């Protein structure tokens, strides 16, 4: 695992591949999916979830960076 977060210069927070900030953003992103899916009747794919969040100005910048990183890695499963 790399010493530095793939999204910024900061050191990673083991066991996460991200730094503390991007790790918190990643955790929030993962945790909120079930609430979003429930709100939309259980039919929301992660791709749609990410697309919705990327559009919203309320979404934190670190969350948007994590989304772009995951999409780039094809990691939306």
């Amino acid at each position, binding site marked *: 695992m790399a010493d530095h977060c793939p999204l910024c*210069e900061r050191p990673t927070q083991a066991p996460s591949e991200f730094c503390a900030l991007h790790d918190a953003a990643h955790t*929030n992103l993962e945790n*909120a999916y079930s609430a979003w899916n*429930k709100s*939309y009747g259980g039919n929301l794919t992660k791709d749609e979830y990410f697309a919705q969040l990327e559009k*919203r100005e*309320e979404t934190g910048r*670190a*969350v948007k960076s994590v989304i772009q990183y995951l999409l780039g890695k094809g990691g939306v499963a």
Partner: protein
Amino acid sequence: MATTLIVTEKPDAALHVAEALSSEQGPKKISVGGVPFFEVQKDGGRILVCSALGHLYAVSAKGTEVRSQYPVWDLAWKPKYLAERGQGRQEKWIQSISIVSKEADRFINACDYDVEGSLIGYTILKYACDGADKKAQRMKFSTLTVKELRDSYANVLPELDFPLVFAGMCRHEVDWLYGINLSRALTQSALKAGNRYSTLSTGRVQGPTLHFVVDREREIETFVPLPYWALAARVDIDGKVIEAEYEFERLETKAQAEQAIRDCAGKKGLIEKLESKTYQLSPPTPFDLSTLQSEAYRHFGYTPRTALSIAERLYLDQLISYPRTSSQKLPPSINYEEILKGLSQIGAYRSDSSSLLASGSLRPNDGKKGDPAHPAVYPTGAVPRGELDSRGQKLFDLVVRRFLATFGRTATKQSDKATVKVGKHTFFLRGSRTLEKGWVALYGPYAKFQEIILPPLREGQQVTMAALSLEEKYTQPPPRYNPSSLLKAMEDAEIGTKATRADIIETLYKRSYVKEQRMSATPLAFRVTEILMKYCPKVIDVTFTRELETKMEQIEHGKQTRENVVLETIAYLKPVIEDLKTKQQEVGKELTAIIGDRWQASTTLFVPCPQCGSTLKVVRNPKTKKRFIGCAGKWTKNCTYGLPLPQFGALTLLEKRCPKCSFQLIQAKSKGRRPLVSCPKCFMERLMAKRAAETVTIKPTVTK
């Protein structure tokens, strides 16, 4: 002839003290080495009144100071012109006070009555007046009015307020130990690792304050909004359409929301219940400094520092009492009646002051907070001598209106609620009205309440759902701090003092740790906070800072000693700083990248060159040293594009575009002046147009 030397804090205060103590002919202004003094003949003796220029003495390293050296544990009080740069004017000030003091046989400290004022007077008397602190007396006052100054002189306290003095000394010494050692550790680490100088600072209060902003920024950066739905409804009651509120503010699923719409759209509803409640609204409490700053920000957008500096000007103009107070109480000794009589001489307050005077009983709605040194902020009742500037006028009006409102009667309000049932769904119609204005009328434009009057309703009445719509909404991240809410957070956490909080917030801007009015933390702020968290977490720990704050307050009450607190501070800081020094290279490396990015960001524009698309940068002409915007394509594409820049003031490239041409805006800020925001491209175009218009066209003369 017996000579008394009175030391005041500012030149205006010296004049007021001299005027108050002089007979009809007024004080005589004399100059000693270019420094003004006021001479007054009184009771067969002579009084000389001088002023400080704020602090004339400051904490510094013992012996000769090497600015790059740390840790530093031995400290001494030195003239400020020796301890800090740019204080040259103070040298002749100290010399002149020292010369005059030799003629005096009685000394009085008449600086503002608080920790800072007591310390300013003490250091002058001790160091410039050859140890006169031991025999000096103390004048205590909260306004600069003639009556209060005369009373204060007649009842002068027999000795200096030493507990306040020692508390002040301790605060300066502890803050200096923190500031100098931690700031130098950061700055030197970055310099050694990256060979780039950048002033980085932190401090006992600055560290935890920046932590607040960084924590908030982290919450915003990692925020994931959640969707919800809200029903907006309107009902028709006998032709009048009014807003209705659905029983649930938020519906978590789209299905629930759509079902509610299907159930209610176009249906009739029944008013099931009508409720009315009357309630009382107590008058506001008198202004302590932080409430004044908060109201000044809410109504006028003034930062806490601006509000304080305007308030201090009003105090020096004898219009309001001393603003640096924690008290929310107005004691009867300030003489409410006299103040109201004075205010009734001012047209805008005549009617309200007179009606309060006529009411018979005057009792302010005192708050809980007290201050042993001063009452809450109040108008003195003096009529402004000339026209106040716009900001002074606004703040004066706010202070006067607040003062009047605290004496007002309780306001009575009524809230109305109608419960409307549409099948199993419930809606509410809400109204609000003021039955008796009371103090609300006295507070004028600063008391804003919405009045919603419901039409006549009865239980069992049928209403029609006139409009029903569904709105998809999202939860919001927490709001960014602004200078006012950050000051409130500092106050709630009990860190800093009323005298220092506003300056600490300004320092966060100066160090580029935060930007914009809605404060966002910069990457540098994140990095500095992370380093402090990693290597010395207590430095940014609010609890630890508060404990230290409590100990310093205990000195004011004689329950703690200055020596103990300073020694405890050194005992805590010593291992922390020594550890930081051993990790200098590591710390420096963590800072260097961010400083480099910051430097790059501060000199590189985000808009490309309009001619060749290359990067535009702020550069200096090596010969003339003038700065301008140049194109990086000069060397690769022979691009000659350039734009002029203001030559004075600190330059900031703003993250905003010109509304006219979309070029990046810049800001030049000179000390003591308002920031100048401009568009370099529009400026250049205006300049070219002006030059073209000024060019004189000479028509050729045709000789026949």
